[in-house]
């Protein structure tokens, strides 16, 4: 990055929460507009352009929700891991806000991909759940998300909670690929061959383009909601500080009266 580019915009400009809030407010209508437009296009293409599968019928359209959700479920964790490096290495004041805000979103997208996968699996495999490698890894990812959220909720002090969660997020970031690999290994050991046939070897462009548009729409929605949750978190912390100041003022005035 050149010096001029750095002068015009740097991530440190947003270290000031007030500046971040005004930046988020400016960005919000654009993000909202973009996600509404891409969703409109994506949903239209899903229902009217993308053909039904010759075997799976209309159920194949679950894919346009399922696949973007799964992508974002993993993307949110990557986002959290990057924010965690920001918390621990650069001590960026908004990094832990960003990581904390991404966690519930990641959990929701993981949950969505599991539910849609289950709904898709019922007509295709005849059962709501199979211990397939992908489903199992997503379930483990969901548990890791929920564990992180509960760690955030149990530690009162937001700074300490942020740092502790950042450490766990990074440990998870190293171990999650190993979990993925081990679950794949485990699944090939146990899976009787032929139960699941993934016949999506060649994705035709009439499927691929709506899928990519939907992925784009989901990404815009993710960024928008992430900004919104970050904004709420900053406001919540301000209220917390105001509460503490008010309590301190009340306490000091009381002791002042007594003396």
């Amino acid at each position, binding site marked *: 990055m050149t010096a001029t580019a750095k002068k015009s915009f740097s991530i440190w400009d947003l270290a000031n929460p007030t500046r971040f809030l005004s930046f988020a407010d400016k960005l919000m209508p654009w993000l909202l507009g973009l996600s509404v437009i891409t969703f409109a296009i994506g949903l239209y293409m899903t229902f009217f352009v993308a053909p039904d599968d010759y075997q799976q019928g209309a159920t194949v359209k679950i894919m346009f929700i399922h696949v973007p959700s799964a992508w974002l479920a993993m993307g949110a964790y990557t986002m959290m891991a990057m924010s965690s490096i920001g918390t621990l290495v650069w001590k960026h004041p908004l990094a832990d806000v960003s990581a904390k805000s991404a966690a519930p979103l990641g959990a929701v997208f993981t949950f969505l991909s599991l539910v849609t996968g289950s709904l898709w699996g019922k007509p295709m495999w005849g059962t709501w759940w199979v211990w397939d490698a992908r489903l199992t890894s997503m379930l*483990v990812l969901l548990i890791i998300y929920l564990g992180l959220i*509960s760690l955030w909720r149990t530690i009162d002090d937001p700074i300490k909670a942020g740092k502790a969660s950042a450490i766990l997020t990074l440990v998870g970031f190293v171990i999650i690929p*190993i979990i993925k690999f081990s679950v794949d290994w485990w699944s090939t050991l146990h899976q009787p061959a032929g139960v699941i046939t993934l016949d999506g070897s060649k994705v035709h462009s009439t499927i691929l383009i709506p899928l990519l548009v939907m992925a784009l729409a989901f990404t815009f929605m993710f960024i928008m909601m992430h900004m919104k949750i970050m904004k709420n978190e900053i406001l919540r912390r301000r209220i917390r500080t105001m509460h503490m100041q008010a309590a301190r003022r009340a306490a000091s005035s009381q002791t002042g009266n007594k003396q």
Partner: protein
Amino acid sequence: MSAMAALFKREIQLSVRVGGGALMGVLFFLIVVTVFPFAVGPDLNLLARLGPAILWIGALLATLLGLDRLYQADQEDGSLDLLLLTDHPLEMVVLIKCTAQWVATGLPLVLAAPLLSLFLNLEPIGIAAVTATLLVGTPALTLIGSVGAALTVILRRGGLLLSILILPLTIPILIFGVSASIGAVTDPAPFTTPFYILCAISLLMLIIGPIASAAALRTAQE
């Protein structure tokens, strides 16, 4: 280095003398193994098939449940602050504490495994395989559990949260431990491949565990 030796001796003495120490973990292990046949039935063939899995689940739970006091006791009586102030790196202190914890609680589980395997109708080669995988795998459980113990050190009731945070991360250890044990007995499945991967995971945890635990302890004591 004598300070580290003194720390190791202190940790061993504390864990052996306070609260039943090693015996408690082994007793818990025994109870888990005893409870399983009541749930799945006394069929010896079925138990032989499930045996490695039962032993691994028992060892996993016994290791994790013993970990919540690893740093908390030191935090409560203030010795953790002294450990933070020493000129030895905190990662080293963590590693020594984990080693002592493993010798006091993990090693007895490994030693008890052959005896408990007899209850589960395992063949001699299966017994050897389970014991070998536990010997290699339990240090990894202690080291990754240490991260959880360090993260929850300031919480008054961190035990349950520790298990929630750490159990998903132990899945690879469980998978490869059980696969190797089963691979030793059944023919087409390999023993060496999952066993080597288990060794690799343990070595990786040897790096991740102390670094992450030390970072978490520093954060907690700030």
